[in-house]
């Protein structure tokens, strides 16, 4: 259905996070248009908006869960999947793509066993396919937490990921 990617990562929210979330929601309750700021703040607390968090928002604000999910899946600013400690982006813009970015992202998917938009269950790596990031001369390009790797070949992927062990 659609192109919604649900997370396969187990929820690991803490009691402190939940207390902070509920306190924030109680303050927002009743104000007009509370849902958007509530979701932004909830994402600020957890980094993403899994079902466990959306259910709390639903309970506290009295907004149906489906309505919340509709808003979350409408705006790209909201994430259904957590970002890993190391957030990998592979450019699939035209230049990168013709230079073999497809092979690169496939290699990463196989090694980490996750699809684009997803995160490994140990929350170490998340993977995203992006549009042109503006350095086509380096195609194909990938970034890890902002660090740029250019002219990447599929068989160099292992060596690059090995640098991010901790």
């Amino acid at each position: 259905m659609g192109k919604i990617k649900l997370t396969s990562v187990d929820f690991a929210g803490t009691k402190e996070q939940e207390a902070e979330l509920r306190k924030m929601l109680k303050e927002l309750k009743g104000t007009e248009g509370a849902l958007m700021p509530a979701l932004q703040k909830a994402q600020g607390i957890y980094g993403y908006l899994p079902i466990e968090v959306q259910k709390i928002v639903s309970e506290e604000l009295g907004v149906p869960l489906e309505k919340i999910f509709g808003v979350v899946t409408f705006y790209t600013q909201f994430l259904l999947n957590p970002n890993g400690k190391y957030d990998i982006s592979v450019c699939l813009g035209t230049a990168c793509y013709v230079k073999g970015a497809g092979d690169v992202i496939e290699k990463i998917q196989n090694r980490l066993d996750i699809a684009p938009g997803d995160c490994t269950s140990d929350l170490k790596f998340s993977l995203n396919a992006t549009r042109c990031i503006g350095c086509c001369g380096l195609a194909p390009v990938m970034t890890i937490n902002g660090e740029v790797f250019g002219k990447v070949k599929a068989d160099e992927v292992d060596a690059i990921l090995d640098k991010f062990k901790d």
Partner: protein
Amino acid sequence: MKKINLKINGLSVTVPEGTTILEAANIAGIKIPTLCYLKDINKIGACRVCVVEVKGARNLVASCVYPVSEGMEVITNSPKVLDSRKKTVELLLSNHNQDCLSCVRNGSCELNKLSYELGCKSDSYDGVKTESKVDNSSLSIVRDNSKCILCRRCVAACQAYQSVSVIGANSKGFDTHIACAFEQPLGEVSCVNCGQCINVCPTGALREKDEIDEVLEALNNPDKYVVVGTAPSIRVALGEEFGYPIGKNVEGKMVAALRKLGFKNVFDVDFAADLTIMEEGYEFIDRVKNGGKLPMMTSCSPAWIKFMEHNYPELLDHLSTAKSPQQMFGACCKTYFAEKMGIDPKKMFVVSIMPCTAKKYEKDRPYQSAAGVKDIDAVLTTRELARLIKRCGIMFNNLKNEQFDAPLGIGSGAGLIFGATGGVMEAALRTVASVLTGSDLNNIDFNEVRGNSSVKEAVYDIAGMKVKVAVVSSLSAARDMMEKVKQGKADYHFIEVMSCPGGCVNGGGQPILDAHTRNTVDYKKLRASAIYKTDKAMKLRMSHHNPAIREIYDSYFEKPNSHKAHEALHTKYVKRNSFN
């Protein structure tokens, strides 16, 4: 209120300020086609089918949301308007599963009708189609998004009528689709199976889970003894499927058709409604006399029961433990009647004809098997019964009237009025008042609890006691009422709740009426009037006077709320959470 003068297609019209162009056109007798618009619940101007030309306006405007203004000149059928509507519908068709030949809505599809009226070609635009899977997870409702046009009428019905809100638009742009939170299947969320979404769907994207084949198979199985019972509100709606006007009582033809289909006995669930009154009525008297939980709430409507289990589990002990009439009917068939006839209940196949999709869910609930096997084997909606009659080549309109079989086909007027909001309350009051005062009332019309408003209240003086009652229909009104109960602000003795607005005459299994009819005809009132008219003309109008009811207690259940009656005719509820 200020009046506004305008011209529509050259015709002068005067309407109150704030009226939309669409409403003004209706008043003037000019029809503007609509698709997403539903009066009172869905005014979103999204589909662009109702566009009209307004002199001086830059673009065509959506008449369903555009207010009239003084001196306005509107054209509803200019070439520009007709061309725009045609293109709009053709674009919808380009992303529509054109499975029209075998679609359950063949003949009642609003998209089909519009594309015919607008002269659309089905293949004007060729392009990618959104991918979707049929959601078959619910026991009551099937969603096929390949036929969805994203009008959001189902979303509006779920929210506005029922405050259930388990469906909505997910994702965006071309990927937008109607589904549940986190793409959960409908059968796994807190959907109550009421089927109001089906009734408002303009296409075949929503339908009931069809059980016609199971019923045909049973009817053709020589080892099965197949009986049928019809709910009170079927007889005043079924005729619509065969061209009769809304509000025509076709009981006699319906019975004849069922007999022709091969059912061994054709019974009337009105009987079981009478039995419900006895069980629920005596339970009420017991609660009042012995300090039981009040207000007591009715338990006939299975969507209401599931709604309570999800949203107010702490109030479940307010619900009467009496099974619904459908389940009492099945229980009586497989215990009392099976014993009487010497039939093994395992070989009996009981079909109920219901105005309701939630009844399909109810039949599979736990604690609904009096004889050790399910009380009810199959549930057909009014629509499915019409299709079954048509499939078997029965000429419904030519049938001669026939009567239900005894004993489970004998019902009173009190049982019949269960089909309209307020009917259960009135039927209960007729019997409870007679029992408490020790003699029958002179006037048994309780007009205060009749009619289509979503909340009705009355106080009756019965045997020196002031009995305060409330009658609620639609789950959004029920939610408001439950909040009052929770806060201790509802000092009623007895509350009737029907899930569907107007009660069973407007159930989710009833014949589908197109948006234009829904927007312009008070069909709930017409169907309900047919019920009250029939009740008024009946001699037997009180449940406790029903000879078949007296007989079943004398020879089988002993007395209302006896141990034996409790075993067969009462049930239990389960606590759920608000999400699933």
